[in-house]
C-alpha cells in the first residue's frame, strides 16, 4: 500500500527544487493521495496480472492489426 504523507510531498518537491507555495501544499497532498488510493485499487485488482506483462508504451508502428 502506498500511503502519502505531507512529509513525503514536501521533501520530494524540495528534492526537485520546485518552489511550491505553502498554501498550495494541501491541494497537492490531496491530489497525490487520491491518485495513490486509486493506484492501490488497481494493484489489488490487477497486481498479479501486472507482473506478467511488460510496460510497453502503447504506440503502434510496429504492430499488426
Amino acid at each position, binding site marked *: 500500500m*502506498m500511503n502519502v504523507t505531507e512529509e*513525503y*510531498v514536501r521533501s*520530494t*518537491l524540495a528534492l*526537485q*527544487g*520546485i*518552489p*511550491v*507555495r505553502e498554501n*498550495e501544499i494541501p*491541494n*497537492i497532498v*490531496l*491530489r*497525490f*493521495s*487520491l*491518485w*495513490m*488510493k*486509486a*493506484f492501490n*485499487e*488497481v*494493484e489489488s*485488482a*490487477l497486481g498479479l*496480472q*501486472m*507482473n506478467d*506483462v*511488460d*510496460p*510497453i*508504451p*502503447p*504506440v*503502434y*508502428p510496429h*504492430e499488426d*492489426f
Partner: protein
Amino acid sequence: MSDELTGLSGHEQAELIRCRAISPVDLVHAYLARIERWDGILRAWITVDGDRAVAAARTAEQEIASGRYRGPLHGIPYGVKDQMHALGFPTTLGTRVLDPEETVAPCNATVIERLDAAGAILLGKQNLHEFGKGGTIELPFGQPRNPWNPAYSASSSSSGSGIAPSAGMCTFSIGEDTGGSIRGPAAMNGVVGLRPTYGRVSRYGAVAAAYTSDTIGPLARTVSDVAGVMEAISGFDARDPLSSKRSVDSYVATLDRPIKGLRLAVVREIAWGAGTTDEVKTVFQAALDVLRSLGAQIEEVSLPLAKYAVPLQLLSADADVASYFVKNYFRDRYDRFDVGTRTRLAAASLIPATVYNRAMRARVLVRQEVLEATKAYDALVCPTIVRATKPIEQEQEKIENSDDAVVRLMERRISVYPFSVANVPAISVPMGFASNGLPLAIQFATKPFDEATLFNVAHAYERAAGWWQSQPDLERTLVSAAA
C-alpha cells in the same frame, strides 16, 4: 449572404468554390466578420491574422480560376489549437509562462504543411487550456464559452477548436487529444471530433509531452468534413519517430456504404454506468434506435477495466508531462503557471518510478481488453459525455477527500480515457440535447487504423439522426452576454 456561407458544411462550400460560384475571399471575409462580432464573448481564438488569410484566399482564387484546383480543401478556412507551430504566428500554448520571444514558431507543424499543400487557409490559432493540459482555472487569453449558452463550459483542452466550427467561425479546426481533449470539446459544443489512431497523424511541430497518448485530429460540423481533413493530414512523416508507415485509406469515398449488418457493441460500463445520468441514457437509447433502423446489430460488451483508465493515465502520462516541466520552467517560473496547472504538475512530479512502471503495466491490460473488444465487433459505441454540460465554474476540477473520491475520479472521464489508453480511433458525433439546451454526443471507437469503418458508421448515424443541421443561433444565445 455571409452567414449563409458560414452555415454551409465544408463539403458544400468546396463544391461552390470548385465551380466558382463563390470565392474563397468571400468565405474568409464571412468568417472574419463572425470572429470580429462574436469572439469577444466566446474567446475561441488567441491570434487571428485576417490580412494573411485574405491574401491566401486571393491566391487560391487565382489558382482555381486558372484551372489549378487542388481538391476539396482548396480555399477552405480553418483554425488550429495554439499548441501547434505555424510560421508567422506565435505559439502561445495558452500560458503566461513563456516570454514573447519564446513563442516564435520555429517551423510549421506537419499538419500545417499538409493543409497548406491542400490549399486550406489558416485563419489563426485557437484558445486552449494551458499547455494543452486540462484543469486551467484562469485562462490568460480569455475564458472560452459555449456558443449554445455562454455561461456554460466549452470543455477542455481544445476548447477554441470546438467552439469555432460550432459558432460558424471556421469550417474546421485541428485539435489535440491526450485524454479526450478533442472529443470533449466536440461533444460539448455540438460538433464532430476525431481522435485518430496513434501514429496516423504526425505529431511533428506540436508542443506536447505525453508521448504515449498525444494525438492530433480534426473537428468540424460533419463527419464528411472530418474525413476529408483526415485524408489530407494522415500518413507517414519521418520527423515523427512514432509515425506509422501504413498507407492511408480513402475515407470520403467509403462514407456512404450501408451499415446494415454491422455489429456495434454498447460499452456497458460507460453507457449504463452509475456515473451516467438517466437523461443521457435516454438520449443514447434513442440514438441506438436510429442505428437499429439503419440495420446495424446492437449488442453489448463489458469492459470492466475501463474504470481504471483515468487514474492510470494520470499516473503515467501526467508523470511524463511533469518530467518535462520540472526541467523546463517549473523551478524558476512556478508562479507564472496557472494554479490549476501547477498543482496538478507538482502532484505528478511526485509519482515514484516504481508506480509509473506498474501503471504502464496496467495500461497494457486495459488496452488489451479494449483491443479484444474492437476485434470482436465492427465498432464500440457509448455516450461521449455521461452527463449534461455544467456552468463554467461547476465544471472546474474539484479536489476532494470524500470516501467516494476515488470512484468519482474514475468516473470523471470514463467515457473517453479508455480509448486514449488503448490508442484506438474514436469519434464523437452530436446525438441531441440535454434539458438545459446543451449538446449531447455519441462516440464510436474501433480497432487501430480502421478510421474508414468509424467514419462510415458515424456518417450513417449523422445523416439519419440529422442533428448536424442544428447550429447555435448566436443572435439569440449570446444576446444577454453581448448586452
